[in-house]
């Protein structure tokens, strides 16, 4: 049985970076994603994952669960911004910027 993605995104024992990587890998079909498998987020291009618009809607919601957990009331990311992120590192930076 795989993870419950909403619980994992709200799990503050995990780093924000790991939760972002988990959301991306979970969307790609991994039931128990290993964030360590994205070893180089700066050079891992989001376009290579071939996410659909529906995928991006879900990924954005999952990022926003982390943002809301870390800083309740913070401005959430919007779907179009997340779809425009170039690399996995951009996603991590986007979530970190939202909870600053």
């Amino acid at each position, binding site marked *: 049985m795989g993870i419950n*993605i909403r619980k994992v995104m709200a799990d503050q024992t995990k780093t924000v970076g790991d939760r972002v990587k988990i959301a991306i890998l979970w969307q*790609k079909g991994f039931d128990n994603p290993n964030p360590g498998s994205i070893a180089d987020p700066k050079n891992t291009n989001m376009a290579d994952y071939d996410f659909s*618009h*529906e995928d991006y*809607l879900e990924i954005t919601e999952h990022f926003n669960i982390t943002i809301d957990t870390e800083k309740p009331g913070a401005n959430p990311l919007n779907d179009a911004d997340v779809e425009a992120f170039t690399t996995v590192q951009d996603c991590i930076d986007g979530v970190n910027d939202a909870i600053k």
Partner: protein
Amino acid sequence: MKRHITIALLVPVCFLWAGTLSAQTSKQDSLGQKKSAAAGTAKKDTTKKAPVKTWFDKYVKIGQSTATSEQQSLPARFNITFPDHKGASYLVDIGVSIQDMPKVVNGLLSFIGEYHRNTLTDSVQNNLQLGIGFHKILFHFDGGNSTLFLIADPQYSWDGVAKKNSVQSNVLLTPHWRPGKFHLGTPIQANDTSHTMLFSLFAGSQLQNVFPSDTTALHGFKLRVLSTGMASYSFNRHHDFENPLITIFASYSIRSAVINRVGDGEKWTHLLNTGINYVIAAKPLKISIGGSFVEGSDYFSGMKAQQYFLVSLNVLK
């Protein structure tokens, strides 16, 4: 005996070197990732420059069509044939989605454009569609792991064969359902990432109002209900799930024109699209050569009932 020069078969040769390069690069990337993963740390790489993404990289998606993720996952197809003593015959089957839209609603908006031109078969197709794609989450279920989506794509459509214009839209529902190891709508990855499966399901309606371009053309309103199922199976290169080698796919749509005021006799229609693609380059565009078998019709994009087998050059982004 007629001699044919089929570009779809010749052009991929030009990409073979690119495929070889891509495979080598991918092997290195894959090995690098495994090494780092084994170490259990996500090290910062300060020696490499992060990839620079252009507007095209960021916002443009290319597939066979744009309405659904199932259609987006199928590559655009191209084929051109030059018979002796005859004009060229060709196929262009492409949908382009541009994401660069202002955030004005609770959902994702994109510009969509599709062009479907086929002179290779007896039933010629010449169809242009321009509109807006809209994707929205309706609700979650299964404790939040599954989601139901709404998809709509209001658009203008021009049919150059039937000489008519339409205002039309799909209104579809599709689930991302993850009850356990089986997923619907998101991929299923093998434990060793040697292969990837994808199943998806769409159901809903198509609304189409046909306007005549001259007094003899049929016109009126149509409402179809439809359902589409799709399955694909990819063997991945070097256990890299981002880098498929061979993809086998099948898609089947069934529709019923429950309201048809056009008077063209359309009732039940279907479309089977199945085939196999060999991916010769995966990044930045997925370029493949493939054989597909198509049987049925798709009046929404001006395709009359027909059946053909096609070898084509395919592009997916």
